[in-house]
């Protein structure tokens, strides 16, 4: 009989079954991770039938979302830093270039994927399909069975595991800003010209702007189907 219940008397204790149903989050320390395992072969079947239509056969597609796999090297797996993030070679930042913790992927696939049928995968299936993705990125070998027992070791091979830092400046209310400005009111230093102007073709990429603004008032939307006003 808790003190709280005495105060407002609303709500009721959650049952074990209810907690089991909803308390599904998995933390980086693997708190919340259910037991289970899955092979890459099993994962490949699930992937092909359930995931590939959106993410591509090798997680490379960017037709419905940015690629999941790509841009990481065996070297990154050693260093835990994805080198391509500093070079400019890779066209986009793939999921495996960014995500530092394997728990994140397990948790997210389990709660949200496949996108059009979320929460349909059993834990073993999540292990399997995640193993398949990790193998695509050469983080685990092709005969690997991912399980709750060995996932902590896989964590030690995540390519970008050392590539993130918690940034208190924007976390704590009194965090220290890393940028800023000073109030200057007259004859302030400023560039003579804009460093960037809207590319002419971008003027019309969002359609006729006249149709996106109020028809009366101090200013009007410009008909961007026509050339710029002169």
């Amino acid at each position, binding site marked *: 009989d808790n003190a*709280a*219940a005495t*105060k407002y008397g*609303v*709500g*009721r*204790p*959650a049952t074990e079954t209810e907690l089991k149903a909803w*308390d599904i*989050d998995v*933390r980086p*320390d693997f708190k919340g991770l259910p037991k289970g395992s899955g092979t890459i072969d099993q994962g490949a079947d699930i992937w092909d039938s359930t995931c590939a239509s959106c993410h591509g056969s090798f997680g490379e597609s960017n*037709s419905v*979302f940015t690629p999941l796999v790509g841009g990481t090297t065996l070297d990154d797996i050693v260093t835990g830093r*994805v080198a391509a*993030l*500093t070079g400019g070679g890779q066209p986009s930042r793939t999921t495996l270039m*960014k*995500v*530092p913790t394997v728990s*994140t992927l397990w*948790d*997210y696939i389990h709660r949200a994927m496949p*996108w059009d049928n979320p929460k349909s995968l059993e834990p073993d299936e999540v292990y399997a399909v995640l193993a398949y993705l990790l193998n695509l990125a050469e983080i685990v070998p092709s005969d690997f069975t991912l399980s709750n027992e060995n996932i902590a070791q896989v964590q030690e091979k995540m390519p970008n595991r050392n590539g*993130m*830092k*918690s*940034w208190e*400046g*924007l976390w*704590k*209310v009194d*965090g220290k*800003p890393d*940028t*800023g*400005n000073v*109030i200057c*009111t*007259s004859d*302030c230093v400023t*560039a003579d010209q*804009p*460093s*960037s*102007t*809207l*590319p002419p073709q*971008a003027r019309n*990429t*969002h359609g006729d702007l006249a149709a*996106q*603004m*109020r028809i009366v008032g*101090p*200013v009007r*939307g*410009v008909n*961007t189907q026509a050339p710029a*006003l002169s």
Partner: protein
Amino acid sequence: ATGPTLAASAQQAVGDPMILEPRPWSTKLGYPVAFKPYGQPSPFEANLQRRQSPGLTQTTQASVSFAPLQGFFGIITPSGLHFERHHQGWVDVDPEQHRLMVNGMVEEAKVYTMDDLMRLPSVSRIHFIECGANTGMEWGNAAVPTVQYTHGMLSCCEFTGVPLKVLLDDCGADIKNAQFVLAEGNDGSSMTRTISMEAALDDVLVAWGMNGEMLRPENGYPLRLVVPGVQGVSWVKWLRRIEVGDKPWNSKDEASHYVDMMPDGIHRQYTSIQECKSVITSPSGGQALMGKGFYNVSGLAWSGRGKIKQVDVSFDAGRNWKTARLETPVLDKCLTRFNIDWVWDGSPVILQSRATDSTGFVQPRYRQLREVRGTRSTYHNNAIQSWQVAQSGEVFNVQMD
């Protein structure tokens, strides 16, 4: 001496047909009351809609629709034009079927119905919500034409709900040892986000009310977390669960998105707070001024760290600045509307606004931001916005270093 001038002045001596010929609305019986039991804007306002930015996202359910800031007045966002950001689409939750669970480091995990929650002591407060990715398309260069697309992942409403602290107390949360709470939604993505205990005990609300009525479905009906000052993705919608814990969760949107990449390739995580920022909404990109003369230049300023203290406006690309009028009320972690008189002499000019908040932080220039954060960090672009007015009156999005 005979010409358009004389003709115009002769016509003027008679007058404007809008006055001389009675308009239908003043010579007829109008519509009855409650003709619309729930009213709508005038059809003449139909241009003002939420819109997507073409090409920004690959799908329409993991996407964003931008609020038409160019048409807004004051600080309250009309609920029908609140920006949207979904990760797995928006859902229509039956409030009688909705539940909130609180678990983790608590004396007793509990389940609440909407009826339960709405019996608890509630508070109402006006706060802005800004997506961490707002102005994200502009990190590299001027990319989109109007303020709807540069700054439209921003809204401001009056929220009503129970302080999260009341629920944490009700479940006997272990506030000494726990440092974090997890918030989880009940949509397809069951979005999870880590919230700092500091915020949770301060001003976070478990809210059902928005602008006087229930939340709109797109904004989390019947329950969302309101985390004042913090980026929108943390304001978990269709909220179904709060877990109290001693470590952050590194959820998908804390480990793959909503992480800010620095020039050295390191990503910053848990970059929650939306720092001080402002933008002129009228005149703004894609608009044209209707000739020389007097204008009321108007815009919005906000800070996730407190109140707006001052907004300065420059009409010469940042060389000289004048302090704008602030409309009241000026509230904590809330939009503040600013206005300033201006006479346009017809020559090309660049307009900027620069906000200062109650901590003394001054909104940075692009150069100041990029010197630290580079150009590929996607989130938290709070640089000074520049609008270039051409001689034609047309306004263009430009960036000043």
